[in-house]
């Protein structure tokens, strides 16, 4: 187990290193372009050269990379071109906002989708299964921008119950969180529920469930004790992958509701060409992706006793 953890950590570091190098090569090989981005389109060639010299850009490429990595590790991603503040400052705040969004989503999505999936998979082909499966397919097949528009039309414009934007300009407000979370939930819920259903249905047809039933133990215990743990192994991995999906998935929702989170930051940076913010955001996204994989690998071995090291 310890060896596995160490090996996974090592490969995680390696992936981060490779990605960061590619990222750096992609954005900062063309030095003049960088200077152009920072100083604006109307800056002269001379100004750009001076800026480059001043900021150490005339050092060899590899040395620059090492310095950049060193700074990134200390949390220094440079200055945002658009916002004129250190990237780390914006990034931290925006990540926290998206974190709140993700936390609310997961707190609702995990229990609801697992319950739905388990109830559906318990008796494959039953009315309950059909109803839940159809619901999940419908909600998952509606894209986020469509459901965002639809929900806004109902709850903001017709009923007037909820605010249409979630910029939180007047301080934190729970009400502004409802619609973004609902849109994400609607999409993600069905997906995880269907995965859980498939896993549960498979477990329910397995021979050890037959053994448990024919042992004469109560049906409740068959489900809770015998089926559940085996059925949750697959959805666990899927849920961890949702973290990953969320980072890109939130862009549409955050931009739509003007929520000041990681997604809208990345979106703005990309539109503006704010390279330091893009670099930082990409690194964070890759880290989340790799780290969630790491957690799901470790969790998987803990859940499944057949894989122990």
């Amino acid at each position, binding site marked *: 187990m310890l060896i596995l953890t160490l090996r996974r950590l090592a490969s995680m570091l390696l992936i981060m290193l490779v990605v960061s190098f590619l990222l750096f090569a992609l954005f900062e090989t063309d030095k003049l372009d960088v200077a152009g981005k920072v100083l604006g389109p109307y800056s002269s060639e001379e100004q750009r050269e001076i800026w480059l010299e001043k900021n150490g850009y005339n050092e060899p490429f590899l040395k620059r990379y090492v310095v950049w990595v060193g700074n990134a590790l200390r949390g220094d991603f440079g200055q945002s071109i658009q916002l004129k503040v250190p990237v780390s400052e914006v990034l931290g705040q925006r990540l926290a906002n998206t974190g709140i969004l993700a936390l609310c989503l997961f707190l609702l999505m995990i229990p609801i989708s697992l319950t739905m999936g388990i109830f559906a998979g318990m008796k494959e082909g039953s009315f309950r299964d059909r109803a839940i499966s159809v619901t999940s397919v419908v909600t998952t097949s509606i894209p986020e921008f469509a459901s965002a528009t639809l929900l806004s039309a109902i709850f903001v414009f017709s009923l007037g119950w909820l605010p249409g934007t979630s910029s939180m300009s007047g301080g934190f407000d729970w009400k502004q969180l409802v619609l973004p979370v609902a849109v994400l939930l609607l999409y993600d819920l069905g997906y995880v529920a269907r995965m859980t259903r498939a896993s549960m249905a498979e477990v329910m047809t397995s021979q050890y469930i*037959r*053994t448990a039933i024919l042992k004469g133990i109560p049906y409740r215990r068959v489900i809770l004790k015998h089926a559940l743990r085996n059925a949750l192994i697959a959805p666990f991995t899927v849920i961890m992958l949702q973290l990953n999906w969320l980072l890109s998935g939130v862009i549409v929702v955050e931009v739509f509701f003007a929520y000041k989170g990681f997604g809208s930051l990345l979106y703005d940076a990309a539109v503006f060409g704010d390279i330091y913010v893009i670099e930082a955001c990409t690194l964070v996204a890759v880290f989340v992706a790799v780290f969630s994989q790491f957690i799901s690998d470790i969790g998987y071995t803990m859940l499944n006793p057949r894989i122990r090291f």
Partner: protein
Amino acid sequence: MSDQTPVLECKGLSISYYTRAGEIPAVVDFDLTVYPGETIGLVGESGCGKSTVAMAIMQHLGTNGGITGGEILFKGRDMTKMSDDELRKLRGSEIAMIYQEPFASLNPSMRCGEQLMEVPLFHEDITEKEARERARQILIDVKLPDPDRVMNAYPHQLSGGQQQRVVIAMGLLSNPSLLLLDEPTTALDVTVEAGIVKLIADISEKFNTAQIYISHNLGLILETCDRVFVMYSGEVVEEGTIDSLFTWPRHPYTHGLFGCIPLPTADKNAAPLRPIKGQLPLPHERPSGCYFHPRCNHAVAGRCDQQHVPMAHVTGSAEDHRVRCVRWQEIDHTAEAPGGEAKPAIEPGEKVLEVDRMKKYYEVHDRSLKAILSGQTTKYVKANESLNFTAHRGETVAIVGESGCGKSTFAKVLMGLETGTDGAIKVGDVDLSELGVRDRSAEQISALQMVFQNPFDTLNPSHSVGSQIARVIRRFTDENDEDKIRERVFELLDIVKLPRDFYYRRPRQLSGGQKQRVGIARAFAGNPAMVIADEPVSALDVSVAAAVTELLTDIQRENKTTLLFISHDLSVVRYLSDSIVVMYLGWIMERGTTDQIFNPPYNPYTEALLSAVPIADPEVEKREIVLEGNLPSVMNPPKGCPFSTRCPRRIGEICDNEPPPEQEAAPGHVITCHIPLEELREVEPVIHVPSPEERQSTSGAPRPSPDPAAAS
């Protein structure tokens, strides 16, 4: 016995499955009475409805199955009318079941102890501590050597035999009055099977448990049961006591089954197997009249194909010997020869294969922290330890042994899927042991072909049968003319007795037996000098297996091919092979001609193996040798003789510490053992096959008269 109340009575039980094609009657009009302490055998080929009966008794038919008629009385109460809660109270406490695949039947993520404790915890008013004590005690009762370890182990941490013991323990924990056993030993090795069978018999005798034993293995039924029911296509065709039914089978199907299994009286040349013609009908395509008549050699038009045949009592035989055949009184099975038509023997030719001190070690890297700290990260699995034997042209050489003995590893090295570690495998004059299959010439590859164990997985599902066989011809012969290749494929299909339009079929449209025929056609397509058959019939039903076995020997006879037959089943091996190599944990324990292996002197392992194979002939006498313990792990084999940990004839320290010497008992007969040959020669034969004169069933001893006049 009949004055007792029966434990279970099935009266006119009919079970159907509901599918898209409509209602499919799986079991029709099934009657069964089980008295306390009695063991009932249900025999039949797959699809005959025997497992459906067991599931109906448990009232667990799934969502698409249902009982359409009749009743199941358990101690006088009709189970079909019970509520879920009443059923739950019966299951596991009064009626318990033991399953075919122990590993699949145990929950992989719960410790064995907890799974065992559930049984008393939910059926009796008992504390957790008492339940734990009970579970531990039952593990001792089923002879698991280390009950505390098993209690805390997950199922995957136990061997197959240990898992099955846990399943049995679970079934016996609440001391049920009826035990259902669905092929309980099919997934196990023969020597382990023998131990389990004895265990079940001992325990049910101790507790007077009634048993229903489901198996396709007639030999096992003979050893375990009091009464037997032979099922065919959803109904019982013959029932009777073991003695009456096995000695005088009356139904042509029962009789046919005995003709399909390689009994000690069968011989591939003098008395070959007689496969039953045709195939089992699908449940919704059953013929009118007797379901068996299209496959029956005695069927008479106008009598057998008219009305559904009722069960009739066999007059003159045991009281409960009944048969479902209109002509049972007219057919004299004893007039038939015991086997099929005699076929000429083949004379072995020149030496084709010489295996000289071949070794195959696998390196295993242990990456656990403990291994890294102790510096022992590399271990060797000695899959093959110095193999020596030869095979001649036209000869059949069998390699016998239980799982993990290295027989499949040897086949891999021979085929070039692995390379040998040391020694040589000479085919002709060339050493192939270090040539991987990619380094071999087309000629060398085509000389060695293989028939695989599982016909279901070995054919490419997306290519037609014809193109798969044609590819072999294109690859291994000089033929380029497409018409001639096609003609050759047709010929091969003729040879394996498949219709020519199978050329265009895909594997999924074929039954298991047909797929294996295609596998054989494919193997023989390139005119190989030697064919390696790895358990070619073990996945098939008896009647299909007999047909495939006969086909294989016929083609071999025709082409004078050398056949290397890999199997764990000694009865098929005895039937098929000219010489035998017995392997255990990578060692050759004994090798010699079939006669030499089956008669003393034996290696003690061969002796145990011979004793473990069930023989479906009540007049064959067998000495019982039950091996204790499990096969040692190949990762950590015994230091001396590999068999020393289980050997009933172990002579002392020398067995544990020194590798046994090869002793030549007769020319070509080598025994690897520390025990002096003189002592081994004094051992009694394990199997005694009565001569025809001694037999009741073929001599004039009392038997039911086939004459209708005498019977009425």
